[in-house]
């Protein structure tokens, strides 16, 4: 028997924060690839601390639904899950974006735990960002005449968070699909509120590399982008700012193709997933704008 455990931050204040985790878990459950699929949270239940005892499987694949390597993936999760012998160096990621997986016993359960790198730094995540651009514009061929801005939080507490943003920016630039691809940040240069200065393309798709929609993606960023003066009044998609049309996508983590990244992480760590990735692909074919 094999189990998948998706671990995410969650929130004591905002119920929407766990919604993407539940959605991706449900999509993966529906493929039948795992005997058990569980969610666990830092701020909600089941907690990281107790989730492993709620699965019966011997082999457990743990995939963090986090954007970057750093405090949560390197300290909090391994510690709370009691992964015996965990060392950051086991992940062999010197550049902060190449963690794959490492295998442990947890010291409160008789199970083998395959601890995977975060979803956010997997290369398939670049495809999810592109898919997000397709979903928000309703155009599966979106690219020409479009710029793509990827928004990160910025350095605060985690130097790897910017690395993940730059990593995907470089990869998508290399795809030669959008006229321009740029990284912008909430807390460091170049900043979100200057986004139109970095693009000459008339249309800009803006994708925040965040797991869930919340305060930042629904309140701060639409205001900083100049899409609205007051987030409570909502914002238009697309909206006009400084002569550009801005297609603001909201948190990339809510894109249904995220489930594919999670599956891929587990498969690389040895999980048998059969044709689950194709089945997820079918479920998450590009949707139309406004959905």
């Amino acid at each position, binding site marked *: 028997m094999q189990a998948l455990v998706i671990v995410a931050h969650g929130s004591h204040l905002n119920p929407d924060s766990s919604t993407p985790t539940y959605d991706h878990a449900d999509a993966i*459950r529906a493929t039948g690839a795992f005997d058990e699929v569980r969610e666990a949270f830092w*701020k909600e*239940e*089941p*907690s990281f*601390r*107790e989730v492993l*005892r709620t699965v019966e499987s011997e082999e457990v694949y743990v995939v963090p639904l986090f954007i970057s390597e750093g405090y949560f993936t390197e300290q909090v999760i391994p510690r709370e899950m009691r992964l015996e012998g965990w060392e950051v160096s086991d992940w062999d990621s010197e550049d902060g974006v190449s963690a794959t997986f490492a295998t442990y016993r947890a010291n*409160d359960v008789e199970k083998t735990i395959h601890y995977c790198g975060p979803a956010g730094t997997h290369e398939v995540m670049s495809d999810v960002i592109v898919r997000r651009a397709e979903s928000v514009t309703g155009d599966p061929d979106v690219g020409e005449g479009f710029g793509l801005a990827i928004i990160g939080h910025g350095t605060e507490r985690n130097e790897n968070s910017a690395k993940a943003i730059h990593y995907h920016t470089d990869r998508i630039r290399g795809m030669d699909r959008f006229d321009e691809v740029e990284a912008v940040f909430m807390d460091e240069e170049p900043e979100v509120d200057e986004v139109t200065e970095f693009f000459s393309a008339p249309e800009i798709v803006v994708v925040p590399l965040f797991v869930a929609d919340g305060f930042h993606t629904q309140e701060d960023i639409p205001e900083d982008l100049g899409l609205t003066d007051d987030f409570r009044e909502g914002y238009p998609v697309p909206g006009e700012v400084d002569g550009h049309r801005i297609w603001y996508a909201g948190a990339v983590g809510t894109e249904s193709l995220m489930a594919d990244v999670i599956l891929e992480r587990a498969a690389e760590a040895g999980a048998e997933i059969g044709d689950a990735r194709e089945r997820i692909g079918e479920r998450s074919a590009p949707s139309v704008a406004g959905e």
Partner: protein
Amino acid sequence: MNDAQVGALVEAAEEGVEVDGLRVTRVDEGYRFETPETIHRGLSESALRSVAEESPWFVSNWHYWTHVVEGPERARYDFLRWVEGADDHDVPKRYEALSSGVTREWGQLSITATLADDGLRRYDLRHGADRDVSEEDLETYVDPLDARGIATYDDDGRYRPLSTAPTLRTGWVYPDLDGRALVETVEFLYPATVENWHRERRGELDVTHFRETAERQTGIYSIVEGLTVEELEAAAEACCVDSQCLKRRMWDEDEETPLRVPRGEEAFPCREPCSLFVTAARKFVTLGREETRSYEFELTPTEKEQVEAIVDAVADGRVGEIREADLNDGANRYRARYLRALRGGEHGLSDTPTYPEDHD
């Protein structure tokens, strides 16, 4: 009971069967079939089949626990047996009771087990407050996953970050769950409670006390180590008593130092301070770092009592119940607004600055 169950019993007799008073074995001279009421020895296979058919309850009961629930290793086995009182009542008594339904409470949940065809069980799960409400008047659910949605908001539409807070929404029912789906649903409503209860029953509950949990914290949470024992008592009284959380607190300051705060009454244990408690503790530590000061206010005795009534009303979550026109209640909104209008000022209560040095 059905033929398949009898067939499974004949097969299992080779290894020996023993569940709830039913014993079936095979010895050289044939099968032996025993219940508390009868003993048959030296049976041929076909004779075994016919005596088994005369004790359908014992056979289907055996089949349920070994083949459907899949044996005693799992938490769900213990839990489902607890639901129907299997360790307290013999099979005939239990089957009689199950035919009309046996109900147990698990936190705010009410679980009713009844007999289905061939000795299978079906379980009805709902809020305890809806115990006597007819099924048609409740929202009906089938999929255990939907329980996550039920647990998200309370009856007033507020988000519930703590799943064992006694604020579970009412008005819903799972009328027909099998054993596995029942446990799954309960675990979505109250995560890990069945598992930890099961460990406790086996004497294997791993409790992590407050000091150990605090030492483990990093980043912004590392300061919770600074909570004094008095503050810890107050924090447990604020967060962990039954009126706030149904888990039975098994952790203390450390193994040698129990807290005086009542542990709670529920079946399922709390084995370690939860994330909400740690977050609250972090705030309490920062509050505790401030020195007290003396302030001078003029209040009438009734006004002093009114301030206390307001604190109590907020602490006990009673604010929403206070009637609009109940001017006798110190925490009534008009009374509070009147107090603020009369005694409040630019600098707060009695116009006394919180930091007088900023106003010299």
